[in-house]
């Protein structure tokens, strides 16, 4: 679905990506993680054709994203982190924008909108950031586009809306759809995103399914600091030390702690080099 090879991109003299490779297959909710300034939004903009790489090749849904082909654009819905909505009612917005998305499902939109408690009679530019996000997310999910790109979707959402978000996105997921969700708030995305892509120092340093991670590592909360040779990474957390260790034969599987996984990967990327392999990503092409 998305292939990027040897991508280089810089803002002026500040180089952001060098020799970046990425492959995303369809049918999953991919989590794109990275620290502030790691280039998550830039990567999403390169994927969607809003930015052009200075070097390398990339295809999105089989198209060259820099051409911004209509067929490609009508298969992508991109929810940015911050955005204005025009001064008009929700109904007017729908009337003006639905014609661009031939698969739009009005009934599904109403279900999402009701779940998010959005009033179509309100002026869109008077909604709060969270309400705007919920409105646009409902629109995007109902547009049935094969590729949904959500950039920090939970920023601005209140606590109940975050769980609603997880529930609704999970319910909207089909095997023909692919979600790429960028976030630095991994707790908001737990039990939703899989595979995980981690961007660090201008590279994709991790790209793997959680199943693969579970098979290889254990995540345990220990009372004291561990000194075992199998420990890959450990950090002090409330209640002790969260330890990431190589899973030994016969050892029980543990659930993945995304925050610890992320910290482990960005601290010791070399230990996770096997998880950058393209073959590690699950799903159909």
């Amino acid at each position, binding site marked *: 679905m998305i292939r990027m090879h040897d991508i280089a991109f810089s803002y002026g003299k500040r180089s952001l990506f060098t020799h970046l490779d990425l492959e995303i297959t369809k049918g999953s909710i991919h989590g794109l993680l990275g620290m502030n300034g790691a280039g998550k939004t830039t990567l999403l903009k390169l994927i969607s054709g809003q930015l052009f790489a200075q070097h390398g090749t990339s295809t999105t849904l089989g198209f060259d994203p820099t051409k*911004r082909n*209509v067929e490609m*654009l009508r298969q992508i819905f991109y929810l*940015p982190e911050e955005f204005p909505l025009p001064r008009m009612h929700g109904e007017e917005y729908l009337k*003006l924008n639905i014609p661009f998305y031939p698969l739009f499902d009005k009934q599904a939109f109403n279900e999402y909108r009701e779940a998010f408690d959005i009033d179509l009679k309100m002026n869109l530019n008077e909604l709060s950031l969270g309400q705007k996000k919920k409105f646009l997310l409902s629109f995007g999910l109902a547009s049935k586009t094969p590729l949904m790109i959500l950039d920090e979707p939970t920023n601005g959402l209140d606590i109940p809306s975050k769980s609603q978000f997880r529930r609704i996105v999970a319910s909207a997921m089909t095997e023909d759809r692919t979600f790429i969700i960028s976030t630095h708030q991994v707790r908001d995305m737990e039990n939703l995103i899989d595979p995980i892509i981690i961007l660090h120092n201008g590279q994709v340093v991790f790209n793997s399914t959680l199943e693969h991670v579970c098979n290889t590592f254990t995540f345990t909360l220990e009372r004291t600091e561990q000194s075992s040779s199998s420990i890959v990474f450990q950090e002090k957390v409330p209640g002790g030390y969260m330890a990431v260790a190589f899973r030994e034969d016969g050892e029980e599987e543990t659930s993945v702690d995304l925050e610890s996984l992320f910290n482990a990967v960005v601290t010791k990327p070399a230990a996770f080099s096997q998880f950058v392999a393209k073959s590690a990503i699950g799903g159909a092409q």
Partner: protein
Amino acid sequence: MRLLHLLNKEIHESRKAFGTYGITIFLVLFVINLVGAIVAKATGSINVENYYGMFPGFLMLGGAIMTSIFFSDDMFSKKGQHAWLMTPASSLEKFLSKAVINAFVYPIALILLFTAASAFTELIALAITGDKFIMFNPFNGSVWTLVLHFLVVQSIFLLGGTYFRSVHFIKTILAVGSLSILFAIFVALVSRIVFAPYFTGFFTPNFDSITVNFQAFESNMRIFSIIGKIFYWALIAPFCWYVSYLRVKEVQSTDAVQ
């Protein structure tokens, strides 16, 4: 069909700005012409209606400013750019939907507005002063000649509006002014070199060496006139439109500055 949807979207999203501008023009025409009619009646002077005097200003200046800023939010604003770039339509359709509104919808809407405003104002003036009824004639040949000139001038501001990331109108004026000055200097220097035998000093013509062949002069001037007309009517607008389209096609998130 998609172009029509885009046109509809553009007009719908800008309707408040268009409405405010239209009402302003209407009120300006109404107040100036009605006050003029009343004052003329009271002082016994001749009432001169101002519709034809004001139309070029609103068409040229208003149209140039509108064209300059019409791409601004969608091409160069960090907030507005995203939705525009991701709208499922081609770059050509996105460009045309805005360019057509500025180049064709605007002058036609302005002519209709002037016609309606003048008819309304003249009716009121007729009722108050009993003065003769002279309204703006949309079929006047000079109006449409002006619209043709507008298409050329507008194309330059279209290029400025898509090329410059901010302060589009002023930068376009400055760029055109600078280019004109550079061109004038270039022509002067070329003339000085080519016609060196006819000058003394730096730029003082040596009249003793000049013999004028009026027939050849007239013929040359005709050729220059034809070249000038072709350049003005056939080349400027297509060139500006094409380069503007390329700029729209190549715009990226990094171009957003506001």
